[in-house]
């Protein structure tokens, strides 16, 4: 009798967990502040130097635009080819990874593991390794972007495929389709839009990535970043950034329009 009213009063949820989270986050921050030798004071004592750089960057050297058209086109070429090869290689990997296409767990899990491994390798490192093999130029950049694209496209697409409608797959099984027919008529019609949309997204990412690959000698506009930074030519650096921005915005616009139509 006595206990019933007590039980009915709702207890405020414990805030201990939130406090603990807060303490852990603060401890991590304090540790990284100390570890990275960060110092707010430094930022203020060196603010003149920073301000000089920023002031020097504006206005960008617009005359330089004409000179960078060729390397910019080279960067776009690298991104186009890298994304395409990446997309082609991604297809079998997607089919192996998606567990509603490939029902054998001891194949799909290792395939995902390999895919995750690919995704952890930074693209600049890939480019550096390929430069060592193939020498300077576009080719190592294309190879690096290809592997980089496989990681993104395969991961995003297989996750969407796992969420597609089961009906068509069951229907194809019911009519006795073989594996190839089964994939062609139940998976591909549902997955194609996602796939194309992710390929376009990867293409945008690749344009940005390709812009820095030149830092390790893999062709494109990154080579110019390297030389201009070496000569402290900040207006030119800013021109490069603006040129990349223009290309990215245009591609962003086109691919958004295409994706809206697809999905």
């Amino acid at each position, binding site marked *: 009798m006595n206990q019933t009213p007590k039980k009915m009063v709702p207890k405020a949820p414990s805030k201990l967990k939130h406090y603990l989270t807060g303490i852990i986050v603060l401890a991590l921050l304090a540790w990284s502040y100390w570890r*990275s030798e*960060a110092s707010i004071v430094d930022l203020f004592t*060196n603010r003149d130097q920073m301000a000089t*750089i920023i002031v020097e960057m504006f206005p960008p050297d617009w005359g330089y635009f004409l000179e960078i058209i060729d390397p910019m086109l080279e960067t776009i070429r690298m991104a186009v080819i890298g994304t395409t090869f990446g997309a082609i290689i991604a297809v079998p990997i997607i089919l192996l990874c998606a567990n509603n296409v490939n029902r054998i767990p001891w194949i799909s899990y290792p395939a995902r593991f390999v895919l995750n491994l690919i995704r952890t390798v930074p693209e600049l490192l890939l480019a550096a390794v390929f430069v060592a093999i193939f020498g300077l130029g*576009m080719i190592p950049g294309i190879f690096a972007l290809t592997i980089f694209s496989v990681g993104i496209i395969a991961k995003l697409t297989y996750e969407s495929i796992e969420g597609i409608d089961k009906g068509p797959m069951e229907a194809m099984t019911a009519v006795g389709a073989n594996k190839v027919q089964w994939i062609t008529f139940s998976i591909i019609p549902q997955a194609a839009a996602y796939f194309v949309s992710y390929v376009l997204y990867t293409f945008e990412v690749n344009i*940005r990535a390709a812009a820095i690959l030149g830092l390790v000698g893999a062709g494109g506009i990154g080579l110019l*970043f390297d030389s201009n*930074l070496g000569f402290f030519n900040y207006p030119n650096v800013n021109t490069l950034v603006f040129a990349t*921005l223009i290309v990215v915005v245009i591609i962003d616009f086109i691919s958004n329009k295409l994706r809206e139509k697809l999905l």
Partner: protein
Amino acid sequence: MSQLSTQTVDKPKGRGKRVFNRVLILVILAAIYVWAFSGVEEFKIKDTAGQISKAIFEGIIHPDWDFINDEEGLIYGLIDTLAISILGTFISAILTVPFGFWAARRRSKGGFFVTGVGRFILSYIRVFPEVVLAIIFIKAVGPGSYAGVLALGLHSIGMLGKLFAEEVDAIDHGPREALIATGANRIQVLVYSVLPQVLPGFISYTLYRFELNVRGASILGIIGAGGIGAPLIFALQSRNWPRVGIILLGVIILVSLIDLISGYLRKKIV
């Protein structure tokens, strides 16, 4: 009847247009590929390529285990990388909050112009490569982890700002109107209706960005901004493949661990 007849007239027309669109897309694609491949330099394999590939492969399967515990070795570099990405992500998350509200479509009453400017600034920051930012910060604060922290902190605003703005756009206006109806002031409205709705999204995106920043921080050292990148570029330049192998292994393990932890936390939050 009239409906039926219009349908029969419309159908072939729509189909013709669709076929035309498909053909157009194919032609454009073909043109792009012809253009792209025509610009590629001749693909020639150097005589040394096979030898180098073999050396790389052997180096990567026989990593230089001694490097793990070296002073300023693998562990040291990886911990530096982790510290850089934690602090960089935190700085960017704090700096991004105002940008998120600025670039959100619904909240800004200044309309298209204000939102447009916010979005333009975010795009500009996004395309500014973090490596280039790091080089600039090295000039300002000297080489080391701190330059890396600042570069990541600034560069991440570009992507986080876009994601935060989308989150703010998607909020439910019910609670806000309810609070306004009870006579709450602006700060109370923000604290009790807007923040509770956007905070889980903000935290989840910040964790996602943290995963990307760990990858980013592992290459910043290439240009002298601290972390594991510095020994990596030395090893690459001196063709010390066993060392490249162990560093690669270290980066893969660190990134995978962070992905696991952060993926688990994100699932719990959402």
